[in-house]
């Protein structure tokens, strides 16, 4: 029983990080209609900046720099590169972001090289005892930060002008443009937010108990974001949150019970979210909360 509670808490805290990653992925899709395969690399960039500069700037300074740099690169990718090809279909745009991803990931992996970069966060390897189970302090911090950020994001989406503009342009771009919403600006803001979220998520994604900033982090993060975003529904922020938690819980439980699941092979925890995603897609082709595409003739 203790183990189940431990896995539940661990899964939820992991799910909070996954939800942050998926949220950035979904915001860009909502605002710019781009499936951003470079999201994992943006996250790696954020983690890399923290890992490289926390000695010189202190942890808080490094995080601030990381958010600024990652958001700036995200806006650059979105505004400069992708706006040039507005007319292309989503598949082509996705491949374009794959190209960006190759360049970013290769360069960052090269810069990391064989260095072992830690995030240098103040929580270190600390563990607290909560309801009889051990949880890493970074995970509690991650959950707290995630709740704050997601709450702020949802409030902004609901109450600010930008939020209304984003929802309107996601709903009906042409009409939104006609009433004076500047779609390019809305999209750029979405890219900016996605970059910032990726940087924060990257920090927690690589902090203890994970093993630090390595070149494979980007792909691992993308591997978490895709099933989370897809099973929730690509254009739904609620979906991203639910999907993120579902992916975190699935991964934690599949890893925790791997002895019982041994017949499915070692390391099943890593692919379990994809199995869940494929099953959900079989029943609901647009994810749990995604808007169904209705084709009118």
């Amino acid at each position: 029983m203790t183990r189940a509670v431990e896995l539940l808490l661990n899964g939820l805290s992991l799910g909070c990080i996954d939800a942050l990653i998926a949220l950035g992925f979904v915001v860009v899709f909502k605002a710019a209609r781009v499936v951003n395969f470079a999201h994992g690399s943006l996250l790696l960039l954020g983690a890399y900046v923290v890992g490289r500069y926390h000695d010189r700037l202190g942890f808080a300074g490094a995080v601030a720099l990381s958010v600024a740099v990652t958001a700036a690169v995200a806006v650059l990718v979105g505004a400069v590169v992708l706006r040039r090809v507005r007319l292309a279909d989503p598949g082509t745009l996705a491949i374009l972001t794959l190209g960006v991803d190759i360049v970013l990931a290769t360069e960052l992996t090269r810069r990391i090289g064989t260095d072992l970069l830690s995030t240098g966060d103040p929580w270190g390897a600390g563990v607290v005892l909560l309801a009889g189970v051990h949880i890493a302090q970074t995970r509690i911090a991650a959950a707290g930060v995630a709740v704050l950020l997601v709450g702020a994001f949802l409030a902004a989406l609901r109450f600010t002008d930008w939020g209304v503009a984003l929802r309107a342009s996601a709903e009906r771009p042409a009409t939104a443009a006609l009433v004076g919403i500047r779609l390019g600006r809305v999209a750029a803001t979405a890219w900016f937010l996605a970059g910032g979220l990726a940087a924060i998520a990257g920090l927690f994604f690589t902090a203890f108990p994970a093993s630090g900033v390595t070149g494979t982090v980007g792909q691992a993060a993308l591997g978490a974001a895709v099933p989370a975003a897809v099973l929730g529904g690509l254009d739904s922020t609620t979906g991203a949150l639910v999907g993120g938690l579902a992916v975190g819980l699935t991964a934690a439980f599949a890893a925790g019970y791997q002895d019982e699941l041994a017949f499915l092979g070692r390391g099943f925890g890593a692919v379990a979210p994809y199995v869940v995603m494929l099953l959900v897609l079989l029943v609901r082709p647009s994810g749990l909360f995604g808007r169904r595409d209705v084709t009118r003739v």
Partner: protein
Amino acid sequence: MSRPLQAVVWAMAVALALAAPLSLTSFWLQTALFVMAAAIGAIGLTLLVGVAGQLSLAHAFFVAVGAYGYAFLAGHWPSPLAAVGGVALAGVAGALFSPIAGRLRGIYLGLASLGLVFLGQHILLNATPLTGGFNGRDVAPFNLFGFTFTATNPDVVVFNVPYGALERLWYLFLLVLAIAYWYARNLLHSRPGRALAGIRDSSVAAAVMGVDVRRYRAAAFTVSSGYAGLAGVLFALAFGRIVPDSFGFAMSIDFLAMIVIGGLGSVPGSVAGAAVVTALPLVISHYSGALGFLAQPGEPGVGAADAARLLYGAAVVAVLLFVPGGLAQLVPTARRRVARPNRPRPSVKETSDEANARGGYRPVPDPDRM
């Protein structure tokens, strides 16, 4: 080009290809084998992504099915039968996935197919009796009715050049690539090809014209997987030993890069793209010493492998931004410019499913599609 001239050019190309093993070094032969294997996979992917308009990131999975299927079957069956078996297995895997593929639209399919790659890696690493697990498994050399594709048995010497495994595989691969190319070209210009292009441009319009959209989507997926399987068989033969690492997400991206650089939907373009993407890293690392500006292994700086990846990542971006038709677009443009230098180039406008569904072709940038 006039017809007789074209025939002469073709004949010269064929003669050159047949004589090539006489003078090429083993490095170039090996590179060419990889290029030809990749070209077949790229043709299959361009049929799916470029022609049928279904984004797939799962290509590496089907390549793996073909490669491992062949490696396993070759232990029990004669080689040609095992090769056919590998292709069939990949096709069946594609057909099994097609209920999902047929239901999902565009980008959702691409993301769902990503799941297959990770699942495939998991299976390859864990089904040790079949796949050899992390260390992979050896592939038996191809044996065509007693003629083995190895250095001996029987010994073959042409103009004092001993024909080893690479030289023999060259002819086998050339033949298979030619057939695969010819089949794809015919498919494109036949009824099913037009039906698939119709589905890509507007699934609604295609359905109204009597195309069974779901069945054709599933068929496209199956054919494309079969091509991937064939590529897998050739990869297995060219490598001699296959490991799960070769068939990961990176390979899927490589294939997408090939068809984008070559030009989406173009069969010759995908062959050219395969040549660029496959040969570039090999050639750069082969000549990295001579190139000078690249870092040698162990030194800081941009090494050969990194340089190749940076180059082709940038190439994907640049092609999509500036030459959306890829290499395939450049050739006809150049040819037309040579033929009629003063004629303005006709502009090509893309249409899309959604644009068509909302009222068809639009000449001005449409904010709905941003």
